[in-house]
């Protein structure tokens, strides 16, 4: 309607957007500003309500629930008892160890493997389309299908993996049934299922690297590894660090894979993750207070981690 609402592109991209709009507001007059805001908020309202009900309010509610108890239909304040309950539960510490182990392994596999695959694929002058399609194929499968497939492969009796090891004359493994290899097996399955997305993103990033940089490095006599270290990685650093953050946040909330592969706990609880423990408290033990308390701990840790990460990566950019 009115020209001022449609700010020019330059103004949009300036960081001090709020300031500049306030300056304009004073010029456009109250009635116009109100009308502009009304319609702007009308556009926003649907999403904002959804966020309010299903995202922001639950966050607040997590705090409230963590300090409440429900018994016989009566909800009362529980003080710190939910938190002491979870801290006294041996499964709590085990779940954290398992989740961190999963995150660590997932970084080795889920983070490094797609990057190496992308670097390799990017060198090929042939068949890239086919290879990309292959890597992305599992992403399109329903997760239950992929996970159950791996469950069959891991079966120590009739499973495919032990058959392959047998053919190669390697010792057979217990896979999901051994406390030492259970989590690793979960990570391998998860990597197979999910690496497609990351690989494609890395490939796109790699294709944005100017070729002259490699040429310059070669003039300096750099070999393959040094070129990767000094050109490829720095050039894709932004994407890499963003993906690292996403990966860590994603792996901290792993549920589906261990739930379907080992029933959740795994041998002696070795695949019990924090989110599975939340699920167990709430839906097996009917103890929503402790579930919320555990969710709260995870929420606070993740929020703290993200904030620290963003801060660190910002300061390293400057």
């Amino acid at each position: 309607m009115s020209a001022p609402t449609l700010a020019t592109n330059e103004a949009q991209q300036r960081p001090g957007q709020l300031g500049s709009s306030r300056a304009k507001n004073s010029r456009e007059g109250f009635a116009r500003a109100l009308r502009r805001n009304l319609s702007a908020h009308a556009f926003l309202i649907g999403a904002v309500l959804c966020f309010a009900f299903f995202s922001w309010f639950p966050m607040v509610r997590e705090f409230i629930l963590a300090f409440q108890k429900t018994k016989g239909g009566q909800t009362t304040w529980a003080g710190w008892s939910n938190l002491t309950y979870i801290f006294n539960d041996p499964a709590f510490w085990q779940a954290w160890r398992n989740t961190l182990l999963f995150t660590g392994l997932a970084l080795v596999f889920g983070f490094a493997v797609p990057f190496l695959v992308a670097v390799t694929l990017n060198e090929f002058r042939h068949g890239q389309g086919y290879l990309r399609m292959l890597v992305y194929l599992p992403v399109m499968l329903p997760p239950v299908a992929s996970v159950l497939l791996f469950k069959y492969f891991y079966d120590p009796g009739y499973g495919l993996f032990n058959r392959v090891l047998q053919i190669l004359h390697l010792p057979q493994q217990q896979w999901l049934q051994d406390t030492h290899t259970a989590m690793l097996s979960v990570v391998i399955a998860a990597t197979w299922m999910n690496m497609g997305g990351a690989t494609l993103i890395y490939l796109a990033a790699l294709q944005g690297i100017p070729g002259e940089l490699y040429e310059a490095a070669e003039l300096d006599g750099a070999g393959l590894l040094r070129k990767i270290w000094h050109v490829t990685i720095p050039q894709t650093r932004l994407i890499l660090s963003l993906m690292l953050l996403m990966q860590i946040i994603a792996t901290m909330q792993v549920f589906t894979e261990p739930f379907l592969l080992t029933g959740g706990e795994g041998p002696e609880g070795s695949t019990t993750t924090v989110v599975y423990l939340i699920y167990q408290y709430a839906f097996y033990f009917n103890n929503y207070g402790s579930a919320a308390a555990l969710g709260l701990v995870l929420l606070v840790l993740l929020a703290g981690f993200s904030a620290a990460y963003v801060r660190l990566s910002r300061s390293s950019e400057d």
Partner: protein
Amino acid sequence: MTTRTLISPAQLGRTRGKVVYWTVFAVVIAVFTLVFLGPLYWMATGGLKSAQEFVQAPPTSFPKSLHPGNYSQAWRVMDLSHLLLNTLWYAFGALAFQLVFDVAAAYSLSRLRPVFGKLILGMMLATLMIPATVLVVPQYITVLDVPLFHRNLLNSPWVIWLPSVTNAFNIFLLKRFFDSIPGELLDAAAMDGASRLRTLWSVVLPISRPILGVVSIFAVVGVWKDFLWPMLTLPDPGKQTLNVGIYSLASGVPENWLVAALGIASLPTLLIFLLFQRNIMGGLTAGGLKG
């Protein structure tokens, strides 16, 4: 595709370079085919085996006798068509809600600059740092009795559709794309007296097709792949999604039928993917990076 990459063309031109290139290439092609198509082959043939042969050690690489009946049994007994339709209904409903609400919100945040716009955007983006599963308990309790409305959303499609709108990543992608639209274009529309809705509809959306494609894929795939949330909120077997339905049926049918069911369940998206491969992957990489 002719851009200069890690290995110099000169190196590749030499005989030794060529040998190494083709060896690596052949190995990668073989290994990738095995790793990514192998399981699918196993799934397709596993569904053709008899129950006894399926659990036989060592596994056979090709069924000794073919039992295509497994597929029809799985289809009938597990009511896969029903599960499939449910999932599509949830996925496309979620897509519609996201396209309407998230596009409107991103447009408003990008172009209409409402008061508190930055704050709202910040609060939305903050949810990216706190994954949904962490909030599963309070979210679950919320949908049991939605505040103010006092509706129980359990077993209704709304329980999938409405929370799917809280997709901050999609809003972020959309907003960034809208930010990059030249202001002159919108100014011109405004000069012609177009309302904001009209500008959004006939100027912004047509040039946003690539990003809308990406967002749509994310929206549909998000519902398609979700497991914990639909498992909790759609307990009625008649309303379950494909993932949850197969999971809850898994212990109730012979293994060979189950594998046949997995094969059938995988087919629709695999077909869509193979047909629209180029568009999907092109859109994903472009959107993920430049969005």
